[in-house]
């Protein structure tokens, strides 16, 4: 019994370490935090942004693993949904940038002038795709 508990603790701890490390590495590679610091013009905010990521990950894992509920009005989901979407949007944009899609696409096809116009296509496409999925697609 004692051995089993010990083994479970070790496995749980190492699993959490690996996943947490991977998560932070992923966020670091995509450069979302430097981007937010650049936009907010506050280099001193770095530490608090790091803690925001850590606490967010902890809240998420505790909430999903232990079935805790807050039992507040559904309207609290509005800001949560908006911020969750913005984060995924930044993730998607950062990923597209890491993959170097835009420079190659626009230069090869001589579309430099239309860069922002084409950006809008992607942004609006993401919004439409997502709305379509939640409003209609999930019913099938």
């Amino acid at each position, binding site marked *: 019994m004692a051995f089993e508990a010990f083994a479970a603790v070790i496995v749980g701890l190492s699993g959490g370490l690996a996943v947490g490390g991977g998560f932070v590495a992923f966020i670091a590679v995509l450069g979302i935090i430097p981007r937010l610091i650049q936009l907010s013009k506050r280099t001193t905010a770095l530490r608090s942004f790091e803690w925001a990521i850590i606490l967010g990950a902890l809240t998420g894992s505790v909430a999903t693993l232990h079935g805790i509920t807050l039992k507040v009005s559904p309207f609290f989901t509005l800001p949560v949904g908006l911020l969750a979407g913005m984060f995924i949007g930044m993730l998607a944009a950062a990923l597209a940038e890491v993959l170097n899609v835009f420079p*190659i696409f626009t230069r090869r096809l001589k579309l430099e002038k239309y860069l922002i116009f084409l950006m809008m296509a992607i942004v609006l496409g993401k919004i439409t795709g997502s709305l379509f999925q*939640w409003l209609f697609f*999930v019913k099938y």
Partner: protein
Amino acid sequence: MERRVYLELFNDKKAMDKETLFVKDVARLEGKREIVSQIEQLPVYTPTKKDENYVVIDVLTILQHIHSALPDIHVIPIGPKQTVIEIAREKQPLSPLFVLFFWLLLYIGSALAIMNFHEDVSMLLVHQKLYLFITGKELAQPLLLQIPYSIGLGLGMIIFFNHIFKKRINEEPSPLDIEIFQYKKGIEDYLSATETDRSSKPWPSKHSPQ
């Protein structure tokens, strides 16, 4: 001392087809006024049909041109050893239909990609669980969470790329601007390294100093 001129090549330059490039187009100089203005007017290169999109001009070619005309000037080159000239040709304006086609391609493609992503990471399940976590109620379609989420998705991308449809949030270049700059610089570095002229540049004998 006064016959000495410093020359710095520019990093890049755009030129029209068949437009003769002078020294002043590819470099800047430091030296005595009369000598500098004399050197600046020397022709360096005229792009021809044979050249494709880029021409690489190295500093030795320019020194050869200067010394052929003004043999007793001591030119000291500083900065890059080559300059990449991008040749702009007359090109027919892009058809709006073509642009529209690519717009739709990106639009449909990114809509499909985000749906694939949502399915892949079980986003609906996560939204349902998140809704349960906040409200304590189970709901198959937590739209109150999902509609702001979808709008936030677009907002997040705009924030990352620093574009609110042409208007900048601040004056710093966006990651996309830097990405395109890096890509262009990569092309220029590659051309400088691979297409550069490796031959020696002797003066024409009629000018050789006796």
